[in-house]
């Protein structure tokens, strides 16, 4: 199947030109329209290939394989309307799924994806007023602000790459928002400002704190994920709020955007008291235009709502090392969302082919394979639209029981960390470390750093070293900050040598703010958002060239482009930097002291300086004065 895809020249072309900006986020590979289209065009081939693979993998013959990378949308559309939708031509479609991945560390990762597709056009002047599955609030936002693509994420916690591997959808701690506007927008900054305020209301978040001091226009790191090839970064705005705290009040409006709300389907599981009792929580909304069919004559809008959560082994699994839907979410599943055309649960069982790591119940015979993040993963699939999934008790409670102990740390091919070096409140140094753990392949990464203006970067001190040697970036885009107006923006394309650590350091000076500019808790420190590292990482599948995988020999000589590398975005941790902070009880003391100094010191000094000193003659005696008066009356000069 992969080889089949590779033969599309368009696909190759796109890969070459935008090779860095392709997401291979999930197994639902709607990444590039062509790719999607390619399979849509030839669904039979895809199915055949899948069957072939299944047939070759000898031991699992009793299992049924399913080509899940591609949803046979056309077929579903024909099937669904008969049941749900009496109108002849439904233009929208809703899918929901949950992926559960038992993590290496014993924790468990649950990723929800809800996808609404709607074949409509907000832009061409025709006013869209009838909404069915697509949330009206977002539709209005798209048409009013001429948004071409919108990506917003709220994250509480930090994704621990070293223990958990790569996430399906990366996001930085706090809130992140990036938007591509249509090229018809004239005043992008004003639109952006208005948009953030509206989104702030929709998601109950402090997005209204996004202003020019934390907005940047990355030149290369964030490319459109939907159709269209406008890459003029004047229409792009990117901002993060690392301090944003995500809680129930952000979850509720997010759930309200779903067609079934939290009444039915997978969204039943989203109970906030359990979701926020976890190690990591991230929710996101992605809106982008995608092709409707392979010819791409019509476009449709895709709204993808994702929610990722990691449950901690130690906090909840006291003694018993087992997980169940009920334990994780304090709910079980009884039905799919009636509006959904597909509703599935995937359990990643790749590391557990013979059931030696954990035990999964109830067992399912449905299996699926997909390329996820450069690795071929196997999933057990539970289809909630099938009634027999729920069994006789009419409810589905998946159970994972661990058998082995937790493992050591992982060595993901790419990971990064960042910290502030130095001490004192005058200067400091930001260190960004990027690890390439690939044994023999070097690859380029794009590093994006957006630093607030109150850390004055000394860009001449920028050094990039790997393996003790200077590593010259092939591309640097630096936009200096302006005090109180805009942040620093630093983008670099750096080649990471194999099996190495690349260290990027830059010194900065801490600015002294005006006293009204301090936050109410200035001694907490000031946040610097995460660095963003985007890269095309050579995949692990391509690494084992002499693998014993059951693949035909003819398919494995040339590394296939699609499998040879995959897109990864890594966010570093945000920084908390202390700025020189005045003692805010001091103004009172200062006023007292100043008044005293002015009153006593300045007053008398001024007096001394301006007074003219004269030697005073002793005053004449009384007799003399009388005599002078008499002499004055007489008209003679006085004595």
């Amino acid at each position: 199947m992969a080889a089949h895809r590779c033969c599309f020249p368009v696909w190759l072309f796109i890969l070459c030109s935008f090779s860095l900006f392709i997401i291979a986020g999930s197994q639902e590979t709607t990444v590039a329209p062509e790719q999607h289209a390619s399979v849509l065009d030839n669904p039979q081939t895809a199915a055949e290939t899948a069957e072939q693979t299944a047939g070759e993998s000898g031991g699992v013959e009793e299992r049924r394989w399913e080509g899940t990378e591609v949803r046979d949308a056309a077929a579903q559309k024909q099937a669904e309307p008969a049941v749900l939708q009496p109108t002849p031509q439904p233009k929208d479609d809703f899918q929901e799924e949950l992926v559960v991945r038992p993590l290496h560390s014993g924790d468990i990762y649950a990723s929800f994806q809800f996808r609404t597709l709607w074949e409509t056009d907000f832009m061409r002047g025709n006013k869209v007023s009838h909404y069915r599955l697509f949330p009206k609030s977002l539709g209005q936002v798209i048409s009013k602000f001429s948004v071409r693509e919108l990506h917003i994420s709220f994250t509480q916690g930090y994704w621990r790459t070293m223990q958990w591997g790569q996430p399906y959808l990366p996001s930085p701690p706090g809130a992140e928002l990036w938007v591509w506007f249509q090229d018809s927008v004239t005043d992008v900054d004003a639109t952006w400002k208005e948009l953030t305020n509206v989104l702030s209301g929709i998601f109950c978040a402090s997005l209204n704190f996004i202003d020019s001091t934390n907005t940047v226009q990355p030149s290369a790191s964030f490319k459109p994920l939907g159709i269209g090839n406008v890459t003029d970064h004047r229409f792009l705005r990117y901002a993060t709020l690392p301090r944003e705290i995500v809680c129930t009040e952000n979850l509720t409006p997010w759930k309200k955007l779903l067609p079934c709300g939290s009444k039915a389907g997978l969204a039943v599981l989203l109970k906030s008291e359990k979701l926020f009792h976890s190690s990591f929580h991230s929710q996101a909304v992605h809106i982008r235009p995608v092709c409707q069919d392979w010819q791409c004559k019509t476009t449709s809008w895709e709204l993808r709502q994702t929610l990722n959560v990691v449950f901690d082994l130690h906090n909840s699994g006291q003694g018993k090392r087992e997980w169940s839907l009920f334990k994780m979410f304090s709910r079980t599943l009884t039905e799919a969302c009636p509006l959904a055309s597909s509703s599935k649960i995937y359990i990643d069982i790749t590391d557990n082919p013979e059931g030696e790591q954990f035990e999964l119940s109830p067992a399912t015979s449905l299996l699926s394979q997909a390329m996820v993040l450069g690795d071929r993963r196997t999933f057990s699939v539970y289809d909630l639209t099938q009634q027999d999934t729920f069994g006789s008790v009419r409810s589905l409670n998946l159970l994972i029981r661990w058998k082995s102990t937790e493992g050591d740390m992982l060595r993901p091919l790419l990971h990064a960390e960042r910290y502030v070096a130095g001490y004192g409140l005058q200067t400091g140094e930001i260190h960004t470390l990027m690890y390439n753990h690939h044994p023999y392949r070097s690859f380029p990464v794009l590093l994006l750093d957006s630093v607030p203006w109150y850390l004055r970067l000394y860009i001449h001190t920028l050094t990039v070293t790997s393996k003790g040697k200077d590593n010259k970036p092939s591309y640097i885009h630096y936009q200096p900050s302006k005090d109180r107006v805009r942040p620093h923006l630093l983008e670099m394309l750096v080649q990471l040598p194999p099996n190495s650590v690349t260290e990027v350091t830059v010194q900065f000076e801490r600015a002294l703010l005006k006293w009204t500019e301090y936050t109410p808790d200035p001694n907490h420190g000031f946040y610097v958002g995460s660095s963003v590292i985007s890269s095309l990482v050579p995949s692990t599948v391509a690494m084992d060239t002499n693998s014993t995988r059951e693949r035909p020999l003819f398919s494995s000589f040339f590394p296939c482009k699609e499998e040879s590398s995959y897109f990864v975005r890594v966010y570093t941790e945000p920084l908390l930097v202390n700025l020189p902070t005045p003692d805010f009880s001091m103004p009172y003391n200062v006023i007292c002291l100043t008044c005293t100094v002015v009153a006593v010191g300045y007053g008398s000094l001024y007096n001394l300086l301006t007074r003219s000193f004269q030697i005073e003659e002793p005053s004449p005696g009384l007799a003399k004065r009388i005599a002078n008066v008499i002499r004055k009356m007489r008209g003679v000069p006085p004595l």
Partner: protein
Amino acid sequence: MGLLSDPNRRRALINLLTRLNAPICVVCYMAGVAWFMGLAFEPFTLRTYMSENAMGSTMVEERFPSGERAVATGREFAAHKKKVSGMPVEWLVKTMQARGLEVYTQRFSRTLPFPDENKERYMVKGTNVYGILRAPRAPRTEALVLSAPCTPGDNNNQAVGLLLGLAQYFRNQIYWAKDIIFLVNDHDLIGMQAWLEGYHHTNTTGMDWSPLQGRGGSIQAALSLELSSDVVTSMDLVLEGLNGQLPNLDLANLFYAFCQKIGVLCTIQGKLQRNDWDSVSGYSHAVQTMMLMVMKQASGRPWGDHGLFLRYHIEAATIKGINSFRQYKTDATTIGRLLEGMYRKLNNLLERLHQSYFFYLMPSLSHFVSIGYYMPAFGLLAVILLLRALDLWVQLATPPPTTEDGIADIEQVRHAHSSSPGVLSVLTPLVISHLTGAALYMLPIRFQEMAVEHFPVSETEAVVLTAIAVYTLLTIIGTEQGWRVLKLVALLYLAVLLGCTALINFSLGFILALTLVPAAAFVTPHVPKVLSAFVLVILSPACTLLFSVFFFQELQEMPVSFLDGWLLYLSVISQGILDHFLYGSLVYPLIALLVYPCWLLFWNILFWK
């Protein structure tokens, strides 16, 4: 100022100050000392109170259950330590990993400038092990540190055991908002220095360390634990850090509050608190406690592993378990609960500890003296120098008493103005005495390279004595005006020097002022030479240090004989030099480069001809 704009009244004031100069100085000195002694009197001091809101009103329930298991872990640690005769790195890594921490190690090595005879080490190589408990849903921006040193011998095993026990317990809790770093540092302070330098990626002392792999953001507070017995009678709080820096008073308040709540006996400077402040013994107890703090602070060395954190603006303290012959014992579970409570409150912090005082003295754990109260004591001493300087200034400005011959008088005045005896005759002794100071700073290490056998305290002594000898021989011949100008400069120099020192490290400034101010005030070329020279030597910085050593031993209720005291004195000097080279303590350079030359200037004045 109004007073000054009137020439008559100004003259009268100056007359008063010059005429009554000596008595005023004596009164100031006595008042300064009396003020200082009064600081320990309880009615004059303030009760401690929690200033930080985030730690004040929140309720914390301590539930740490597994003290016994922690003690058992401590025994296991001891066994492994004995087996590898050093830090059992592998065992620690495995144990920490089993408790669900992210574990990292750091290797470091350091060659001391000369062998440390107290701890018997010269080439130090070691490994720090630390595990990070990642707070759920926190973005790695803030961290707290709990450390326990891995000391040779049988000490501190229980501290490591309790640290691991707490790690296990903390790991299962959901409420952490800050990462918690559990650190076991090798070679106590050297390991801690290496770890802190690695964490902040600085290198101030030329140590070799391997870079750290895992971090937890900016460290908000740290506690260092020292525990050498399964049960303790009391917990002692150590605050004094490098260069006399102290952590925020709220950290001490927190410790005191939890000791009260849990019912653990708590001490500071190893002294329990007494309630009979109105009796003589109660007062002297408070004075002893405060004087111990002053002596420790003045030494400028870190009195526990926490001392090195303070440079990085991390509030830190050391908590020591003391086991003495009392009936009342506290077990490891209670200590664990004490620490749990403290960490939970620190975890609640929204900002760094900043609300309370950074400059304070503690006559007992429940009372403190803030900077506003103790500074006048130093001010009264420092004003003596200014008064003496004023006196000299007036003497220099007014012409000598008029002779019969008016012309000669004018000549003399003109001579006094034109030749300006100051510059050259002042510059020479200034330069020479500073060169001597520089020699005193450099030579001990330089000599060491020649004589490798042991620490050359004798050489230092030789340097000091030669310098003094040089000065007695090399008497500078100058005019009457000359020594006055020199003394004026020396007085102002000393005033500025002591003032700056007292701002940074009050105790050091005060102790130096106590001895140097009288010497500076009385010395002139016209006093009896032998007696004055003897007094001046008694009041020199070196002798101050010697007396301090004896006094400190006396305060700790461990009096020593003169010979032992002398040996202790030599080791204190070597420790001071080591502290400077290993951790960047500033006391040794301050004494050698600034205070000692200043004292030499006064010596110079005494032998002026």
